[in-house]
């Protein structure tokens, strides 16, 4: 199987994630889409690692996972806090940071 198919898959997943971030309002879903984008990148990293025959991409993907784990912890905490205070998980409601 052609290895570039993994890259196409990665691009498709990333695009789905990006579109999800832009169009969905539910904070949890947006969050999941962000995770999807991160994992799409991981897939690309690993694929490139394979293509180039070294471990650089794999190491980078571990970094991404660690960052993603931290992000999950903080992001979920923020979402829960916002939900507690506003009884809503819609990110359009949390738009106080405008002019």
């Amino acid at each position, binding site marked *: 199987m052609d290895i570039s198919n993994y890259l196409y898959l990665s691009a498709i997943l990333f695009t789905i994630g*990006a579109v999800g*971030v*832009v*169009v969905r*309002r539910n904070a949890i879903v*947006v969050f999941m889409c962000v995770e999807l984008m991160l994992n799409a990148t991981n897939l690309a990293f690993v694929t490139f690692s394979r293509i180039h025959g070294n471990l650089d991409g794999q190491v980078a993907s571990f970094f991404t996972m660690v960052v993603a784990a931290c992000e999950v912890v903080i992001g979920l905490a923020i979402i829960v806090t916002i939900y507690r205070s506003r009884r809503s998980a819609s*990110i*359009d409601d*949390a*738009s*106080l*940071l*405008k*002019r």
Partner: protein
Amino acid sequence: MTTSNLLVYLIALPLISSALLLILGRKADKWGHLLATLVSGSAFVIGVLEFFAMRSRSGDARPATQHIFTWMSVGSFQVDASLLLDQLSIAFVLLITGVGTLIHIYSIAYMSHDRDRRRFFAYLNLFIAAMLLLVLGDSYLNLYVGWEGVGLASYLLIGFWNQKPAYATAAKKAFVANRVGDVGLSLAIMIAFAQFGTVSFAGVKEHAHHASPAALTAIGAMLLLAAAGKSAQFPLQSWLGDAMAGPTPVSALIHAATMVTAGVYLITRSNFIFDASATAQLLVVIVGAITLLFGAIVGTAKDDIKKALAASTMSQIGYMILATGLGPIGYAFAIMHLITHGFFKAGMFLGAGSVMHGMDDEVNMRRFGGLARFMPITTVTFGLGYLAIIGVPPFAGFYSKDKIIETAFNAGGLKGILLGGAALLGAAITAFYMTRVVVLTFAGSKRWDDKAHPHESPALMWIPMAILAVGSVTSGFLLASGNAMVNWLQPIVDPHHHEHGEEFLKPIVVSTMAIVVVVLGVLAAIVKYRTVPVEAPTEVSVFTKAARKDLYQDSFNEAVLMRPGQKLTSGLLFTDKSIVDGAVKAVGFSLQTIAGWIRNLQNGFIRTYALVMLIGLLALIATVWVVTL
């Protein structure tokens, strides 16, 4: 040259006393005036000691110097704070401390009802210190410090009763007019430094006779401007009349006897510059002649006794300035007239103060009349000063003023006739207006309200007046006998001992002419003021109207200088606000507007931000892709 260690105390004592009285404030109220008087008296004693020490020396050893400290030392340029007491300075030191002490004593009584008497004495001492520095400094720069110091003291004392807005304005006017002159002095110092690289009197004198005529004329003209500002000479004379807002002892000390004569000192001290520049000398005599007539004419129309005396001061200083412009012989006569004038004018001002003291501070002479019966001592002392100023022999003014008239006539040619004629005419008008003052105040019938109770002043006031009156009688004779003053000053003002050319008029002729015009002036005044209306008549000639308004000097200044100045400042303000500020504000406003548009992008929706980021990223990738293609 001799060195003396006492000179610095002349300045330090009054300066320390002044600082002490100002710092201690109300705590010093009880004894402040005594300390100030004592200090002024001590300075006089030092002056007398120095005078006798100087007389006992002879020739080049007479001037004494004292080096206090090195003021500034930049490369080869060095200015020392050094004092120089020579034949010229000692005359001023004795006048300043002597008359100053008498006026301190007088003020103890005159200001006794004023709750700020201590502050008044602190300022007086400050003035004495600054004036002594002015005459003792050995360079133009040291002189300048004293010059500014007396300007400050004058300002503070004119505005001493600054709770009255008019008085505060008068003080400001005096200060501004003086500043114009001060600019002249600082320019003269700068030109001297640029040309000669030194600012000390000795250094400038050394360079003066091989300097370019243009530079000397420029320095001379600037020094004359300075003198005109300080000595209330044309065209800067307008402040002196208003300066009478100050307490009367101040008018006597600062605005008659000492500070206003600083201009005469400056020109006499710079004789080496004026002697080398005929143009500068010509300017000096023109200014002197104009002012002596100007002041005399204004004096004939003033009803305020102090303003009449102020106009007279202006006129008499005009005589001195005229004399300083007449070459080496004129300087000595100028200083002689300065000293005799110091006596009789201070005496008359104190007399005016005594009259005001007895008449509830009334200054309008039309409301006096017949005061001779109530104030015999004041009348006598004032009368002696009067005889001295109009130049009746053998009183002081006769010796000093006639010499100036004579020297003016002997200036030669048309110039001599014009100047001599002006001086002679001035003498006639002087006789007229001074007789008017005496007649209106002391003679005739009473014209005051029944509320006033004229009475003689206390001894503390009349004793200084009496001493000054004695000076008015004797000083002229003492200074003129055996050419004492001329010989005394000769090493300073006439080192090469010029021989005088043909005399145009013999002294006896000049004296006779002077006495004739004086008698005419006196008679005219007596006839004209036999009856005096209490209210000043309004149906008067244009000349009287002009004289009452100081010959429209204020109107001229306002129309030519003040209004255009105001227009200029408002124009500049408009330019600043509309164009300079406008440009700055336009930049700010346009940035604000643009920011307002861009701000709309910040709608607070995270998804919008994410979309923008995404688009940006895609654009970036597209760019990179296109570039690497």
